[in-house]
Each structure stands twice: as structure tokens, then as C-alpha cells.
């Protein structure tokens, strides 16, 4: 079923793609930064502090998206007994973790001028911190365990358990009284609380961040494939 996704078949593409993705990322990021820092208007309440949204929100979205993908790939590796799923998940995790850290740090920086504090044990922030811990455990497990079967089981378990936290993060602002504002954008609805002049830079920055995670994924995936092939040379 997944034969067309076998490493031997896709390496030709994944090894050549990073340079094109890097070029596209630099172009989209440059446009996004220009929009976010210069062209987009200031907020009537938050003034220019609102510009932090253009790095904070895409980072949070992508870290959540990547963790959900880790869980999905982990289920896939259990169900279809396909080790390539685990390899893809392992290659996605570093960028997801970095995006999670960026969301936490930029959120903290944004919190100071808007809430008057760098940190609050608020439901949204705490659940994002828990996600970072799950990412940390996931990455650490790949370093600690040497047995391949065992590491796939442990990392899959971490990803599946951790994904329970994803809907908690999403709905934390609705379920509890939090300092964090409610969602301004709903992908299931056409209405949004954000004006187009701010939505456009947000979209461009999200695209740039997605391209960056694709770039890191491709480079990491190629590294993992070469690692596998190195082991193969030892067996010759």
C-alpha cells in the first residue's frame, strides 16, 4: 500500500528538494517580514506590540500541527508495521519542538506589555509547556534507546499520549478563565475577528514557517536515510 513511499524510491526527490525549498522559504519570509514589521497596521489597543502575533501564532499552529502528525504517524507505524512512518515522525520532531519553544518565548515577550507579566500559570500557556515536555521526551527517547523496535514503541506511546494535550490546548481558552485571548480565527468558519490587513501578513508568515519546517524535515529525513544506509554498508 505504501510502496511508492519507500525510502529508496523517494530519496532522489528528498535529496534534491531542500535547495528549492530553502530558496522559496527565503523569498516568502522576506515578504512576510516586510508585511509584519513595516506594512501591516498597528492595533488600536495593543499598538505595535501586536506585531509579535506574526511570529507567535504561526509557531504555535505549526508546533501543534507537527505533534498531531507525530501521533498520526505513530498510529500508522503500529497499524501498518511500516518503519518509514517512524522515520518520518522522527524527522518532523526537531522543527516541531523549536516552534513550540518559539511560541512559548514570544508569548512570554508579548505577555509583558499586554498582561504586565512574563509568565502566568494560565491554562493555555501551561498546556503549551506540557506539549514542549512531550516533545522533549520524544526527542530524548530517540537518543536514549538503542534497540530500534523498543524506541519505535516508546516514541509512539509518547506521541499518542501527548496528542491528548492538543485539544486541551485548543479549547483551554474556552474551558477555563484564562489571561490568553480566545481564538480569533476559526478554520471551520468564514468569519474572523482579524482584519484582512493583519490576516495577510499572518498568512504569509505561516506559509514561511511551514516552508521552514518542510526544509528541516527534508534535511533530517535525508540524514536518517543515510544513517540507515551506513548501517547497511557495515553488513555488506
Amino acid at each position, binding site marked *: 500500500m505504501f510502496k511508492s513511499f519507500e525510502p529508496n524510491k523517494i530519496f532522489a526527490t528528498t535529496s534534491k528538494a531542500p535547495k528549492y525549498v530553502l530558496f522559496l522559504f527565503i523569498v516568502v519570509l522576506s515578504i512576510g517580514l516586510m508585511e509584519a514589521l513595516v506594512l501591516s497596521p*498597528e492595533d488600536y489597543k495593543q499598538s505595535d506590540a501586536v506585531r509579535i502575533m506574526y511570529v507567535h501564532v504561526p509557531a504555535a499552529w505549526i508546533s501543534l500541527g507537527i505533534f498531531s502528525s507525530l501521533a498520526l504517524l505513530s498510529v500508522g507505524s503500529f497499524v501498518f508495521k511500516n518503519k518509514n512512518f517512524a522515520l518520518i515522525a522522527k524527522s518532523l520532531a526537531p*522543527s516541531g519542538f523549536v516552534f513550540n519553544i*518559539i511560541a512559548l518565548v514570544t508569548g512570554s515577550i508579548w505577555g509583558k506589555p499586554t498582561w504586565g507579566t512574563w509568565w502566568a500559570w494560565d491554562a493555555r500557556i501551561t498546556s503549551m509547556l506540557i506539549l514542549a515536555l512531550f516533545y522533549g521526551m520524544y526527542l530524548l527517547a530517540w537518543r536514549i534507546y538503542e534497540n530500534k523496535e523498543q524506541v519505535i514503541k516508546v516514541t509512539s506511546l509518547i506521541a499518542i499520549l501527548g496528542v491528548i494535550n492538543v485539544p486541551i490546548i485548543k479549547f483551554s481558552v474556552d474551558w477555563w478563565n484564562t489571561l490568553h485571548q480566545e481564538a480569533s480565527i476559526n478554520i471551520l468558519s468564514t468569519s474572523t475577528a482579524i482584519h484582512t490587513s493583519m490576516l495577510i501578513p499572518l498568512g504569509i508568515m505561516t506559509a514561511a514557517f511551514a516552508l521552514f519546517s518542510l526544509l528541516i524535515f527534508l534535511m*533530517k529525513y535525508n540524514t536518517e536515510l543515510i544513517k540507515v544506509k551506513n548501517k547497511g554498508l557495515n553488513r555488506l
Partner: protein
Amino acid sequence: MINEIISMNGYGTYVWSAFSFTLISFTALYFVIKLQLSKEQKRFISKFGSLNKEKARAARLQNINREILSNTSNI
């Protein structure tokens, strides 16, 4: 104009530090992953070089090995 962009109505420190942190994280992650990739490629090439003729021929039969050898610097 430049001063306005730098000061950001008094929020410059917050805005610029958030953007700087993001871009520094991107750069650091990119170079760490690139270093890992080139290390693994070098290891592959040195292992491949140490194979005898027969084993090297067998290894070359795999497309992926040929691709790795032809892509010594990916980016």
C-alpha cells in the same frame, strides 16, 4: 521612518526581541541539522571508500547509494 520602525511606539524592545529570537532559532536549527547531514554523508563516503571492489559494486546496485554518492553537498 527608520526611527519609528525601530522604536515601534515604545514596544520596539519586545517586538525586535521576539523576531530576533525566532530568526536566531531558525538559523541555529538549520545549521545543526545541516551539520548532522554532512557528517552522515562524510561517514557514508569514507565507509564506501573502504569497501573492496566486489562489495562496492554490490552497494552501487542500490539507487539510493548512488544518489547519496552523487549528492555529497545537498544544500
